[in-house]
């Protein structure tokens, strides 16, 4: 494949191109199929090709209260968790991006750990901790779990932006008469704005989609992924699951696209002279 390149080194061989495009298709075809199956008339199996097409599942889903409740809960959890993740992640990033003290690597590891260890371990640990502390399982326990592993997503984004900015702009602001707080509001925060927002968007998508830790930290609550999981285990009307899946795809695509959009220009230097 790679080795059939003819004269021009700067053009990929056909083999490589096909391999790359095939790979991308491999990533996306399953999602297309989900969308396709949302319209099928067959609700007891996954017959391909679909015997017929219909929109009726969409209207059924829109009238299902249990699904709507799950959606609202997921949105609520995601919003609050994202807010907490933004606060904690930004604080950690501001403290650590330049730091060079003993133990810094361990702290960085601690921040990454919730997302690095398998979800089931995190989930069980939190569940037993809540049990021992006598905290009843509720929406708040779900949020606490989510905020813990969403923190690192915001942290990464903010740290990357901080490392890319000119180190002197904080000094310049103080040089021109602003104290720490004025510097924070007028210079630091606006500069970090899009990084925090992008990190927040990713954290939102992560929280909205999370199922493993959620099953352990929820009481009777059903978030959308939990609803989806029970459907996967005991499917009833399959196209309904597909319709919900289509909604989930849309809801999570939007934050990702938005996050990419607002950080699109930030790989080049802003305002630094070199």
């Amino acid at each position, binding site marked *: 494949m790679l080795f059939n390149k003819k004269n021009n080194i700067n053009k990929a061989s056909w083999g490589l191109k096909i391999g790359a495009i095939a790979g991308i298709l491999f990533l996306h075809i399953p999602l297309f199929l989900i969308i396709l199956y949302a319209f099928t008339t067959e609700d007891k199996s996954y017959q391909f090709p679909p015997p017929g097409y219909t929109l009726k599942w969409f209207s059924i889903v829109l009238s299902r209260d249990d699904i709507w409740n799950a959606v609202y809960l997921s949105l609520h959890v995601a919003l609050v968790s994202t807010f907490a993740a933004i606060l904690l992640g930004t604080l950690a990033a501001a403290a650590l991006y330049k730091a060079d003290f003993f133990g810094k690597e361990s702290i960085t590891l601690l921040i990454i750990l919730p997302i690095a260890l398998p979800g089931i371990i995190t989930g069980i640990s939190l569940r037993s901790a809540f049990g021992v502390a006598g905290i009843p399982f509720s929406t708040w326990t779900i949020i606490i779990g989510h905020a813990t592993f969403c923190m690192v997503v915001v942290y990464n984004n903010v740290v990357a932006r901080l490392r890319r*900015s*000119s180190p*002197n*702009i904080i*000094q*310049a*602001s*103080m*040089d*021109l*008469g*602003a*104290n720490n707080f*004025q510097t924070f509001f*007028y*210079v630091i925060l*606006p*500069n970090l*704005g899009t990084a925090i927002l992008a990190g927040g968007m990713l954290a939102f998508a992560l929280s909205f989609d999370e199922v493993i830790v959620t099953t352990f930290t929820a009481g009777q609550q059903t978030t959308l992924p939990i609803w989806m999981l029970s459907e996967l285990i005991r499917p009833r009307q399959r196209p309904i699951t597909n319709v919900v899946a289509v909604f989930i795809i849309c809801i999570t695509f939007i934050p990702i696209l938005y996050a990419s959009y607002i950080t699109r220009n930030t790989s*080049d*230097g*802003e*305002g*630094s*002279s*070199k």
Partner: protein
Amino acid sequence: MITALELINVNKSYGQVSALDTIHLNIKDGEFFSLLGPSGSGKTTCLKVIAGFEVPDSGIVNLFGEDVSNVPPFKRNVNTVFQDYALFPHMNVRDNVAYSLKIKKVPKSEQDQQVNEILKIVKLEGYDSRKPSELSGGQRQRVALARSLINKPKILLLDEPLGALDLKLREQMQLELKNLQRQFKITFIYVTHDQQEAMSMSDRIAIFNNGKIEQIDTPANIYSKPKTAFVADFIGTTSIISLDLANKFFNYSKPFSIRPEFIKIQNDNIHDNEFNIEAIIDDVQYQGSYFKIIFKKDDLTLISFYYPNTSKQIDINLGKRYTISWSKDNITDLNE
């Protein structure tokens, strides 16, 4: 003459590394004063101590007679132009320049008026709504200047501000900076590693080496009366004759430095007042209006400048043997 800035016995270390070692500085109001030295010699650290971004381990920082050693940077009446300009990327030119006025809560109409005035002075009229990323290096430099000058500071600190500009632009900016300094009668403290720049712009220069100041003097004195071998060698080109070699070849009891323009080649009339030696041409470098000729005799190396258009024509091929000489008045005794 009012003293604008005084550093008394300032020391600053980073771990084992001593960045500033017993620094004494006394800069007069209205001076164009340069801190000159190689990279890592401490000049930027010194600037940061003056601005307040670094706190010295010991010593006193006096601004116009007031001890500001413990005063944070946002309360000192100095302003800094940073090496990478440090323009706020999310603000346009107008907001960048007006920043300090906004902090001081100056009314908006007055802000606008002052911004317009200063933009005119730095020749950036019409650029006020641009963002820093839309400006060239030279333009960003002017914005950084304007942002500082709008405060009408008594002292302006400049950290290698022209380093990123190409030669022609740099020379032009040197003239403009000097004019600004004279026009506004501001004390400029100017950090650079470019000796040509320091020599041409400054009233006085402090030469830094390894955290210490080797000499503080006017450019002319630094050139013709260097106190140490380092200074003699750092400024311009020179030949440094060590104590042993001075003894051996010239019967002279001190090490000394001799500038290449004073060395005469093949002088038949050698006065008593002159040192002389027979040496061979080891290397010739064409420099445009002159040749740099390197003479060697045993372990002695001497550099001489030969101006073919104004001197007697001589054969400057490698290996040629000549008697070279110079007047005793033109040497500078060195302290080490």
